């Protein structure tokens, strides 16, 4: 399998960084994940959209952090020792995503990924979801980063 700096370049498999939001498991494509960071101080930004938790200092750069649960309309939970900020990068934009815990990096066969429509129908939040992967009886909901960041989006 062709391998360019560690990234699997196969059509039939995708690698995802899997993480938890409440009891559900979600995933970002590993190609978009820049790093995973422990919880640090998040500075509130007045007048920012509601789903933006604030900004953090990432080695001297100021980075916005999205509260994923709030973005996906899930109920809030308090921070725990497992809370992480997943730094994702899309085009030139880097953003932190606040998640409850990072579980693992999984390889999912493309055949095991269902399109979302079957499950979510016309739910307003379905645009955030790009597919649902099945691995060992677990479901990993794959997220559409560009919709979540919402640069083209609604606000």
């Amino acid at each position, binding site marked *: 399998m062709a391998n360019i700096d560690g990234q699997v370049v196969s059509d039939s498999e995708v690698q995802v960084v899997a993480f938890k939001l409440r009891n559900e498991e979600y995933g970002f494509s590993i190609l978009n994940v820049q790093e995973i960071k422990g919880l*640090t*101080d998040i*500075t*509130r*930004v*007045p*007048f*920012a959209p509601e789903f*933006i938790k*604030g*900004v*953090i*200092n990432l*080695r*001297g*750069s*100021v*980075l*916005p952090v999205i509260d994923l649960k709030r973005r996906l309309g899930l109920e809030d939970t308090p921070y725990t020792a497992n809370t992480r900020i997943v730094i994702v990068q899309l085009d*030139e*934009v*880097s*953003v932190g995503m606040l998640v409850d815990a990072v579980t693992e990096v999984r390889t999912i066969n493309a055949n095991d990924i269902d399109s979302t429509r079957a499950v979510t129908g016309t739910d307003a939040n379905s645009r955030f979801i790009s597919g649902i992967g099945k691995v060992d009886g677990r479901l990993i909901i794959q997220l559409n980063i560009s919709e979540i*960041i919402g*640069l083209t989006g609604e606000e």
Partner: protein
Amino acid sequence: METNQYMEMFLDESREHLQSLNDGLLSLENDPEDLSVLNEIFRNAHTLKGMSATMGYTKTAELTHDMENLLDMLRKEQLKVSPEIIDVIFKCLDTLQEMVENISNGESEDLVDVSDLIRQINAIAKGESAEAAAPAAPEASAAAPAGGSPGGISITDTEKTVIVEAKSSGLVPYHIHVEISENCILKSARSYMVMNALDEISDVIKSVPPAEDLEQEKFDHSFDVIIVSDADAKAIEHAVSAISEITVAEVTEFDPEKTEAPAAAPAPTTEPPAPTPEPPAPAAPAPAAKAAPPKAAAPAKKDAKPAAKDAKKAHMGGQSVRVDIEKLDTLMNLVGELVTNKVRLEQIGMTHRLTDLTETLEQMDRVTTDLQSVVMKVRMVPVSQVFNRFPRMVRDLTKELNKEINLTIEGEDTELDRTVIDEIGDPLMHLLRNSLDHGVEHPDEREAKGKPRTGEVGLIARHEGNNVVIMVTDDGAGINADKIRNKAVEKGMITREEADALPDADAVRLIFLPGFSTAEVITDVSGRGVGMDVVRSKIESLGGNVDVETKIDEGSVFKIKLPLTLAIIQAMLVKVQDEMYAIPLGSIDSTINITPDDIKTVQNKEVIVLRGEIIPIARLGEVLSVPKGEATNEEDIFVVVVHVGDHKMGIVVDNLIGQQEIVIKTLGKLLSGLKMLAGATVLGDGHVAMILDVSSLM
């Protein structure tokens, strides 16, 4: 040859050379007799030609070559500098600029048609040089393609022309046969040294095999070079044979006209010389209409400015490196991070009372401070980067407007942060266009007013405290305050009473108000629909301000004040509940300590009275909807009085932390355009604090 890696360099340098060419040509226009300027122009054109030929841009090279020929004729006084010639050369520069931009955009240089220009150049060269008795140039193009091969060296027409011309100006062409020792290991290095040595004392016309092959050691143990030089054969021979491992250096005079072989040189080349005859440029006479530019406006007169006669203009190219601005930003970030970590270490030293650590950190503090200031300085660039595009614009516009205007530039060495430089061009351009169009009157009008026919427009930069001031001045008609008043009333921006009550100085400032689109004050030339309010908002977005002073019939001064840098500013840190905010010191008037009793209300709005002045106040916590913590000390209220222009406002905060230099970071795409925030900064302890945009609080 792999040229991609040189692409950036080629583009950058081409632009630079074109800029110097523009500059040089402008000063030549003012003083056609100045040979040193002409030489400078010629050198620039020559380098440009060489570079584009190396990169394989034949059309660019071709055009520069013809331009260079023309310049050379001027230089040798076979032609006289005329407005017509200057115009054609300017046109060449514009075309070349276009070609370079096309190349830069990844398009082909061929998109631009140069044949017309080349025809014009040749027409000028021919038409005038006929009586100037310069047999060299025209004859060369008529000569048979591909000269003979004297000494096994064949030369192309172009090379022949160069040699003939060099000869006519007193230089001697030589053929040098060089042999390198059989034991030599680094042949290419030796050949390089030979070429270098020759370069110093002569102009190298050609080498066989070509320089590329020499570099790659694609030759046996000998090679041949043709040069022109004013040194004698002995000196050249000496220079070459001084290099070690050179066994034979034979210098013979070279005659391009004859094909006889120089006595000593047995043709050493292994590969057959490839003559590349250049197609003779079509010498059709240019249509008269094309060649003759409108003679309407006299070029900016060489006037009583002897100061401009600086022979020291010869640029001393300092040693420099090109660095991507992004790398500097990264460097800046890293230094910021270093400082942040140092502060953390200091805190550890304090809490654990580690004197050794604290002392070491003091040393480190000095180093990081120096480092920071060096990085800041690296980002600074002289305003000449913006200024030097204006002389050309002024020249063109002056012609277009049929006016006589002299532009004086002062203080172009003044340095500003790169980010400011990038933004300041358009507003300046607008102000200049305004001055040219509306400020300076027509020559006849000026004469009627008893002023010199030539108007003076100035572009002046200088330091003023922690700011850089850029002024656009003119000695024109000035701005009529009454006209502005009437216009403002007409537009319904103020009432007649208000207008009449305004002093003249304030009335003139009305032009900066949005919506003051003044068909009378701003015509098509001065703005593509862009008003002065755009100039103002641009400059204010850079943290600066703009003001105007004017006197009827004496002229106007537009004064732009800019911060030295946008990246680091002095700020006051304040606290509201648990949140920290930074307020730029530049907009802070004073900080005061009041009690709740000092707060009065006017129409339900809270105000305070400070030195007899009524100042509205805003509680920052409420404005920014800071989550409420426990009640804070209600007895002591801190107010930061800020101002924007003449407006003042008090900002009520919970605590003043202190003054600090902060590095401004943008909030990024995702959070752009948030009101009341000008950005964010990372504090010494690693926390992020928001920077308030004071003007939007008002």
